[in-house]
């Protein structure tokens, strides 16, 4: 290991053992490594090594037209890929000055909040597993499956969704999709309630998580934390509320905030966010009914691929189809930064465009990457078992870590 921090303890009696936590350890929930120096069960120092699944997305993106970058964003945080997809579409729409119809905004909110719930289900369920409670995880997993079935109904795929297009959606939500969403909104609250009853005042769970890995608001801000982790530390920063996108400003929801940023607070914040997401979905379902039901994309023929039947029978559609596929469309020369509230925090897209078909430079602000860098410093002096649950509550997703 290069530049491994040398522990300068002068006590000759002390003997430290080295433990490789990862790269493929079940407790890391992803491919990344921590080399820990242990004094018994206590961590003396640690070094994080990441990059095991680095796929050079930023370089690839410089050679792909805008609409072909969406599948790359899927693979960032693959537990909630629709949020990444929507974030990317909105970045391009901001660059091209496209205003989406209200119905598209509401459809997007439904999908993004479902994705947030799916992500939090995994994170909080796995946190339960790591503290020794398998029941909650298995119980909740069924509902992630239901969310995946909703994705499947809308876009045909489950994990890497590639959902939506620049300007809207590739197709309208069908009746089955709406039925499934309504069924989910009705069936999930009692389950979430039971999940909370299982954990929130559970003596074993509370003893294992309360006060573990507490982070002050100043510390969290200095490490550029965002999302549930920052909110658990007591800072009410939520991109949905601060810089509303996709008509979030029309919705009524609360931003849950914790007190001391420990694992228990993060758990509670994530649970509460699931309740707020359900509220948002319900409101969006109501609002959608007041909009014309056949609108599912903006009128931007130069960027939104026309339906295939149109291409065969309509000259304009054929021209636009050709232009989009061959990259003949004009794009403005500009720089744009757009961020959305991903499941892990502020997911930002910094896009520099030079008028070409593909970005001149695209940078992803990946919340997992930025959140995770505090892991090694904060593990110092912690028990190994506490460090494990701290890692699951950080919800580090290897795809988002490495890009």
């Amino acid at each position, binding site marked *: 290991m290069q530049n491994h921090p040398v522990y300068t303890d002068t006590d000759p009696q002390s003997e430290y053992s080295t433990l490789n936590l990862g790269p493929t350890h079940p407790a890391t929930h992803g491919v990344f490594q921590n080399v820990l120096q242990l004094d018994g069960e206590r961590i003396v120092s640690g070094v994080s090594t990441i990059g095991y699944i680095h796929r050079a997305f930023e370089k690839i993106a410089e050679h792909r037209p805008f609409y072909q970058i969406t599948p790359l964003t899927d693979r960032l945080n693959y537990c909630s890929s629709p949020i990444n997809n929507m974030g990317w579409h909105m970045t391009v729409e901001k660059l091209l000055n496209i205003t989406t119809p209200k119905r598209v905004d509401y459809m997007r909110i439904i999908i993004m909040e479902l994705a947030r719930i799916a992500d939090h289900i995994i994170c909080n369920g796995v946190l339960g597993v790591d503290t020794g409670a398998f029941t909650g995880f298995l119980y909740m997993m069924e509902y992630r499956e239901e969310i995946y079935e909703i994705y499947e109904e809308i876009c045909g795929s489950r994990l890497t969704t590639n959902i939506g297009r620049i300007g809207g959606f590739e197709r309208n939500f069908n009746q089955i999709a709406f039925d499934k969403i309504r069924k989910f909104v009705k069936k999930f609250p009692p389950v979430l309630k039971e999940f909370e009853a299982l954990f929130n005042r559970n003596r074993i769970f509370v003893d294992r998580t309360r006060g573990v890995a507490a982070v002050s608001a100043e510390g969290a*801000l200095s490490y550029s934390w965002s999302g549930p982790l920052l909110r658990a530390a007591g800072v009410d920063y939520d991109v949905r509320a601060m810089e509303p996108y996709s008509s979030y400003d029309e919705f009524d929801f609360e931003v849950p905030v914790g007190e001391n940023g420990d694992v228990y607070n993060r758990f509670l914040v994530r649970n509460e966010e699931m309740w707020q997401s359900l509220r948002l979905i319900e409101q969006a379902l109501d609002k959608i009914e007041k909009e014309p039901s056949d609108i599912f994309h903006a009128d931007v023929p130069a960027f939104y691929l026309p339906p295939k039947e149109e291409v065969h029978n309509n000259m304009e559609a054929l021209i636009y189809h050709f232009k989009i596929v061959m990259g003949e469309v004009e794009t403005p020369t500009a720089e744009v930064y757009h961020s959305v509230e991903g499941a892990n925090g502020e997911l930002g897209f910094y896009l520099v465009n030079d008028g070409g078909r593909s970005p001149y430079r695209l940078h992803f602000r990946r919340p997992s990457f930025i959140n995770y860098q505090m892991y090694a410093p904060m593990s110092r002096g912690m028990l190994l078992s506490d460090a494990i649950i701290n890692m699951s509550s950080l919800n580090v997703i290897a795809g988002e870590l490495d890009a």
Partner: protein
Amino acid sequence: MGKIANEELLKRLDENFAGKVTQTGADFGLLTVEIDPSVITEVLTFLETDAALQFIFLTDLTAIHYPELEKPIGVIYHLHSLTTNTRIRLKVFLSLDNLHIPTASTIWDGANWMERETYDFFGVIFDGHPDLRRILNVDDMTVFPMRKEYPLEDPNRVDKKDYFFGR
């Protein structure tokens, strides 16, 4: 507190760092200023500590490569003032024979890995960084792959030439 107007922000920067700060754009309302490399730490510290501005959140730090410019490597900071909900973008351009810039990790702990990533992909050397080594690429890599001179794939392929992509 409401959003700080771009003019006001620029005025404050001009008062304190006359001649070292130039506005280069305000695309989509986000003020972009170019900073002279000699004062970057001072500008960042000023923005972070000033009572009226309070840009306490380092959103993002990255770089960009313009091979045709005299100073081809640009380091780009995105700061966010959470109390006023204002963002600002700072750029510092460096020439290839002097890729040194002071680290921002003395101001924000979170800059540590962002700077390592920037070093890894562009070769920018952040002076004073506690642990500047590659982060995502393998340790024994010798090039900085996000620079434009490194092609993505086999350069003999003809179906993915840049002119097919509008440039």
